[in-house]
């Protein structure tokens, strides 16, 4: 009988812990803070047994900073992990740009579900079925969509969510607009709100408007010298002109909106952007 108080205490503690879990924790990372970062794409390195143990661990102080950046100021034991968006077994790095807090407790999607995808992609990449760059791009872009593509339906029949800032449409799919045309619908996820979401907001029921992006590198061989934006919405140095979702191009010099503009396409100069049918800022 003397065990009952202990059992009741334990039950109460467990119940209290379950009630304290943040079940609205983000399922997808904020692409501004966590665009993903690759350490290596070399199968000869990654596919060696024990590879992940040869990669060093993230300092705890940096993990705590990642929690703070995501607004997580308190957490229960076992509630989260600092996850590598591109997992170590896929060649992901320990850069802060590849780290985010992922919950074990959210349902039906959580860190355990993403682990299944990571294992599958590792198996496919090490088996030569896909390349490591393709695997890294898929999981960094939207791991829920990648799960559907490479594993199967998400648990609970959930439809993959889509982050508004997600560079979901390959640049070759962005239509060339005539001058003065309105928003290119293909490049604008229909279900996505205009503003960036609260990183705490779980959006598993948001319907996906597009299937996972194709990963054929040959798709990038586009006319008009269009260049794909970086995952964080910036443009590469050799094509710095940003085209926004509203079909307006922004120049790196003298445009106050340039820095905050998330590019859906990039061009080397204004003339190329104009030739593709986009207009400048009025």
């Amino acid at each position, binding site marked *: 009988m003397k065990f009952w108080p202990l059992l009741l205490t334990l039950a109460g503690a467990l119940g209290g812990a379950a009630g304290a879990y943040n079940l609205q924790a983000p399922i997808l990372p*904020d692409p*501004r*803070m966590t*665009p993903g970062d690759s*350490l*290596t794409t*070399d199968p*000869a*390195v990654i596919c060696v047994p024990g*590879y992940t143990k*040869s*990669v*060093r*661990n*993230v*300092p*705890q*102080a*940096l993990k705590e*900073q990642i929690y*703070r*950046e995501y607004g997580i100021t308190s957490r229960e034991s076992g509630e989260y992990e600092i996850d590598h968006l591109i997992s170590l077994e896929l060649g992901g*790095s*320990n*850069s*802060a*740009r590849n780290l985010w807090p992922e919950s074990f407790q959210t349902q039906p999607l959580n860190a355990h579900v993403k682990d299944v995808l990571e294992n599958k992609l590792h198996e496919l990449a090490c088996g030569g079925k896909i390349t490591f760059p393709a695997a890294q791009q898929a999981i960094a872009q939207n791991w829920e969509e990648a799960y559907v593509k490479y594993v199967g339906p998400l648990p609970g029949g959930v439809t993959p969510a889509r982050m508004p800032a997600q560079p979901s449409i390959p640049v070759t799919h962005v239509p060339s607009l005539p001058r003065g045309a309105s928003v290119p619908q293909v490049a604008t996820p229909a279900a996505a709100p205009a503003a960036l979401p609260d990183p705490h907001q779980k959006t598993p029921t948001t319907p996906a408007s597009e299937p996972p992006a194709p990963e054929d590198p040959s798709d990038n061989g586009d006319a008009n010298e269009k260049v794909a934006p970086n995952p*964080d919405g*910036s443009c590469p140095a050799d094509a710095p002109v940003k085209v926004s979702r509203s079909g307006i191009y922004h120049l790196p010099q003298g445009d106050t909106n340039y*820095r905050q503009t998330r590019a859906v396409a990039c061009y080397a100069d204004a003339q190329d952007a104009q030739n593709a049918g986009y207009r400048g800022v009025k």
Partner: protein
Amino acid sequence: MSGVPELKIIDPSGGSSDSPATPRQQQLCAAVCAVIEADERFRALHQPALSRAEINAGLPETGPGYLYLRYDVPGAVPQEFWGHVGKTQKLAWKSGQVCVPLPADAPTIGT
């Protein structure tokens, strides 16, 4: 430190900042690299090349993880290190954490 990549500032609010690294941050990076590159275990690596240097601006300079460094090693696992300012110079090879002292009067504001 020849061929050193740009020291990027990782803004805690997301993404990399356009602000240039301060002289003190550059000084820290140089000091940490010097400690790493003088280590026998590092020197045993085949042609390591510094490929990434980032300041995690959300941390204090004394916080482990403040400076992130990466050396690419052809055909082998890239080596990641973290540097921060501390009282004594120390390299923990297993964890990759490097502590270096910097003078208190070292410059703190970029020019």
